């Protein structure tokens, strides 16, 4: 706000910012009046409150008369107190002597009042023709104080000094206590440069140059950075696409690998009913060879053959479902069903490693929205991991607990499944690394299983995490929001 420029009405000065404190040395009364009417006119036209302090030989009426020549509706301004013309005696010397504090607070009061009444600011001019030698020092102090306090205020002050009353020493004092000085001698102008002004001008020039230089530099820097960013964004996009593709491929590869590892178990799953069927068929043949066949036994064996045939067919159906690569659209999915799908596949694997399975399943798990095959894959992965982690531990620790619970959260019920083992486990700092791609603790492990599993669960709006058990092993949990 203080950088807002105001018209001074003085040609030689041009525009000024608020906070300007300038002094004018004048030769004649005409020089003074010419300058000040122009100064006040500019102030009134800019909706500023003007205060004109006159001193002998100029009197208030004379000032009003001179101003009226250039401001035809001065009467209105005077009536609504947009301008006050007062005598130096009333302003500076109230009570007979000059009081710095009183005069200073007088300015600030006027300023506060003017701002409260909606003026843009306060424009002041004060003449010093009344000054006597004895007051000079005190007045210099006042000018200095004003010079310092005026900055950042909506206040502009023009102090006028008669040249006739000023010796060289006084001119120096005045120049020192103002931001700059101008002089009007017989209608011609001179600008007296003060060291401060000179310095400020040089500073401004330097700063301008520096600023321009910095703008150039920053612009070129920004251009470079922009270019860099554009490149980076492109690169990242490409990398993301590549990663996505690699993930897809690995997900498939992992599924195939897991299946490869499970192929033996699956063969076992089919062999088991097949072996039973063959044994029963042979038993029937033996019985039927007898003279009086034991038909009850034959019937019992044939019933078992039919049942085992169904069992083998069921295994085949499940494998088909698991092998289907194309992911099915998300639909309602019941976690108990997913558990039921996967358990028969891992049961033989558990048996082969002498693992004991315990289950604590909630009867009222909410259905979730998801891809049944992907969820089977996650559970399968966690179970196979648990078996692998338990491979080298003593037999009494080869146990696996599968639990499912319902958790009631703000957004409804969630299905939570936990796979707990007594295997080698992990140290707590590893907890998050476990889910990083290519991080593995298994010899020959790809390090993709958990990473993919987490992607799948997160893709379902759920969460997959691991905790270290108090005694041995680890528990992997995943939580999925129930369907609304």
């Amino acid at each position: 706000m203080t950088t807002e420029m105001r018209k001074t009405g003085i040609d030689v000065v041009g525009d000024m910012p608020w906070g300007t404190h300038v002094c004018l040395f004048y030769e004649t009364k005409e020089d003074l009046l010419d300058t000040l009417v122009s100064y006040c006119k500019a102030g009134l036209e800019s909706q500023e409150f003007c205060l004109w302090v006159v001193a002998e030989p100029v009197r208030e009426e004379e000032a009003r008369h001179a101003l009226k020549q250039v401001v035809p509706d001065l009467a209105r301004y005077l009536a609504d107190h947009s301008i006050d013309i007062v005598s130096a005696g009333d302003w500076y010397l109230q009570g007979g002597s000059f009081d710095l504090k009183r005069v200073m607070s007088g300015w600030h009061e006027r300023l506060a009042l003017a701002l409260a009444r909606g003026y843009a600011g306060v424009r002041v001019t004060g003449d010093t023709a009344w000054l006597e030698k004895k007051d000079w020092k005190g007045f210099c102090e006042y000018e200095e104080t004003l010079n310092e306090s005026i900055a950042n205020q909506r206040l502009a002050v023009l102090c006028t000094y008669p040249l006739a009353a000023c010796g060289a020493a006084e001119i120096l004092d005045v120049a020192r206590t103002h931001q700059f000085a101008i002089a009007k001698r017989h209608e011609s102008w001179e600008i007296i440069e003060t060291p401060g002004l000179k310095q400020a001008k040089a500073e401004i020039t330097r700063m301008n140059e520096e600023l321009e230089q910095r703008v150039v530099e920053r612009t070129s820097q920004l251009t470079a950075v922009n270019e860099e960013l554009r490149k980076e964004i492109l690169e990242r996009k490409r990398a993301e696409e590549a990663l996505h593709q690699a993930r897809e491929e690995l997900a498939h590869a992992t599924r195939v690998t897991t299946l490869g590892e499970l192929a033996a178990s699956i063969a076992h799953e089919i062999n088991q009913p097949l072996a039973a069927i063959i044994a029963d068929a042979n038993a029937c043949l033996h019985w039927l060879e007898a003279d009086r066949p034991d038909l009850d036994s034959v019937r019992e064996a044939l019933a078992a053959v039919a049942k085992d045939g169904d069992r083998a067919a069921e295994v085949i159906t499940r494998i088909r479902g698991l092998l289907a690569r194309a992911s099915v659209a998300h639909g309602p999915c019941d976690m108990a069903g997913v558990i039921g799908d996967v358990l028969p596949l891992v049961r033989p694997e558990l048996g082969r490693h002498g693992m004991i399975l315990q289950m604590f399943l909630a009867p009222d798990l909410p259905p979730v929205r998801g891809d049944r095959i992907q969820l089977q894959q996650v559970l399968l992965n966690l179970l196979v991991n648990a078996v692998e982690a338990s491979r080298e531990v003593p037999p009494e620790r080869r146990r696996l607990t599968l639990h499912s619970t319902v958790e009631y959260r703000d957004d409804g019920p969630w299905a939570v499944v936990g796979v707990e083992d007594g295997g080698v486990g992990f140290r707590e700092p590893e907890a998050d690394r476990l889910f990083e791609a290519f991080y593995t603790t298994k010899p020959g492990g790809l390090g993709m299983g958990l990473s993919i599993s987490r992607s799948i669960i997160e893709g379902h709006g759920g969460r997959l995490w691991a905790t270290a058990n108090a005694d041995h092993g680890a528990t992997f949990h995943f939580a999925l929001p129930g369907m609304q």
Partner: protein
Amino acid sequence: MSSESPVVFVVDDDRAFRDALRRLLTSVGLSVEVFPSAQAFLSNPRRHAPGCLVLDVRLPGLSGLDLQQELANTDTTLPIIFLTGHGDIPMSVRAMKAGAVEFLTKPFREQDLLDAIRHAIDRDRVARTERLELAELRRRYDLLTPRERDVMGATVAGLLNKQIAGQLGTSEATVKEQRGHVMQKMQAGSLADLVRSASRLGITPAGSGPTPPR
């Protein structure tokens, strides 16, 4: 020789298969007992009956191979036929080295299993007979006095009565009398009989005062 009829013990955790196997073996006139786990089998007192054991390699808890080890550590000498869902070569080598009769992969040919069972039961019968005979020989040997044992050792080593008398510092007549007691107590009809019994008892002909291993 035991008069008990042989029993086929089956240990398999798959109930359907276990029952089918029970029906198959029953249909050919074998007596069968089935168990769902190694522990269930071990806690059964009838496991000392003659016969054989049909054992699944993969079992929850104690595996088939663990059970084989466990039985070897006790005095149970039941011949074992292993069954497995898929042939795992290191596993089958291990099982055979530890004395398994047969290692069959499911699904197996019925005849292979029945042959293996017959073979195993025969082997068990022979082994049991041999064990009984050895026990009888040991009982007879225990009846000998220390001096008679010395004479027996020297005799089966092929020494003449005179040489034995010189070695033991006694008369030839005494040796002849003691040798008569040995032949009688060991129920040996000839010197050849006595030598056979000594060899089965593990008495080496060379040493003096041999100790048969128990």
